[in-house]
């Protein structure tokens, strides 16, 4: 009985195509991921059902667990104008070069009096070492001066008050105490900013709640 010979086939698979796919995906993920800006101070924000994404262009007030406040401004913010405005308002005696130097720092977290020494420091001063902007009570709330600087810097611009209010973000640690939060609010209210936004992590509306029903009725609906 002659049996038909089955030709032996190599079990070697050409991996080239798979390799191509792997690296294509890899490069896609790397390029598509937006690098998170390094966080100078770590803060665990509480979560809320808000769905609006936090704006990219923002003035961020950070409130840490210990109650320290920091001010972070992006590159697209008139940072230099703000510092210059604070400089003139509080007569800090900063030179132009010093103002520029401070404006290049990612975080402002020292009292007004410490700004000048900070600008002249040769070594790196990380945000974790900074004592924070004093905002412990209403009598010595330097955050008020900073917010005033912000409103002054934007006073003559095309940006309306509402736009400015949209830009102000507060990111607080969940474990920060209420009085610290109140002091930040005080600083904003003192400068006529009655609206601001709080950075939170998103979570879904609990099943069966009113908001959940609203979302169900109007899936594409806009809600605040």
């Amino acid at each position: 009985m002659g049996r038909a010979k089955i030709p032996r086939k190599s079990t070697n698979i050409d991996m080239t195509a798979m390799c191509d796919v792997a690296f294509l995906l890899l490069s896609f993920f790397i390029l598509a991921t937006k690098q998170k800006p390094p966080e100078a101070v770590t803060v665990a924000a509480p979560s809320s059902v808000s769905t609006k994404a936090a704006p990219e262009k923002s003035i961020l007030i950070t409130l840490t667990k210990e109650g320290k406040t920091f001010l972070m401004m992006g590159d697209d913010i008139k940072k230099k104008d703000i510092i210059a405005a604070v400089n003139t308002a509080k007569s800090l005696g900063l030179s132009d070069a010093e103002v520029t130097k401070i404006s290049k720092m990612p975080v402002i977290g020292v009292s007004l009096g410490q700004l000048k020494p900070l600008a002249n420091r040769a070594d790196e001063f990380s945000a974790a070492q900074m004592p924070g902007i004093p905002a412990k009570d209403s009598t010595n709330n330097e955050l008020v001066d900073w917010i005033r600087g912000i409103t002054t810097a934007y006073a003559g611009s095309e940006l309306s008050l509402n736009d400015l209010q949209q830009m102000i973000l507060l990111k607080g640690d969940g474990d920060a105490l209420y009085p610290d939060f109140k002091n930040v609010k005080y600083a904003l209210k003192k400068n006529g900013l009655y609206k601001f936004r709080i950075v939170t992590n998103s979570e879904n509306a609990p099943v069966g709640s009113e908001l959940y029903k609203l979302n169900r009725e109007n899936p594409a609906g806009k809600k605040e």
Partner: protein
Amino acid sequence: MAEMDTSSGGGHKKGPGVKKPKKLSTRVDLTPMVDLGFLLITFFVFTTTMSKPTAMNMNEPKDDAKEEEMMKVKESAVMTILIGKGDQVYYYNGILTGDNATAIFKSSNFKDIRQIILDKRNSVPDGDKSKSDLMYIIKATKEAKFKNIIDILDEMQINAIPPGHYAEVDINDAELSLIKQTEDANGIK
């Protein structure tokens, strides 16, 4: 793709005595490279945080409003929510007076408060505008955490209380002492 043509062109014969060079395959095993590629993909996928931070709107009442400019709300439509230490929530309906304090002042927690808020909302009759009288006043003690405030504001959103029908204001001494009493009684540290 990963192979190269190594055969010497068209079977050209070399003279006798010339050793035929051994044909070496240039085929490279790409399996480790694929492994590496997928390893990196997995790494990047896992380390990337997908959740984008969201922003919650805060509307603050003006502090310096004069007495006559202040918003008047019906007593029956007001609920005051107080936040104490240890994630405790207290609430009362209407206005707190010396006599009724113990009767209307109740303690709750973040789990139950949602239903309480909702019940209040449903108990208020629809005005000319829907629920125009409804008002929640949120107050917090010194020991309250930022998270608690956000949670309670979030509850307002969850219960679809329209903005402008809840406000966060300062606590007063009568409420503070009531909270203190309740905390002592319940042994909350």
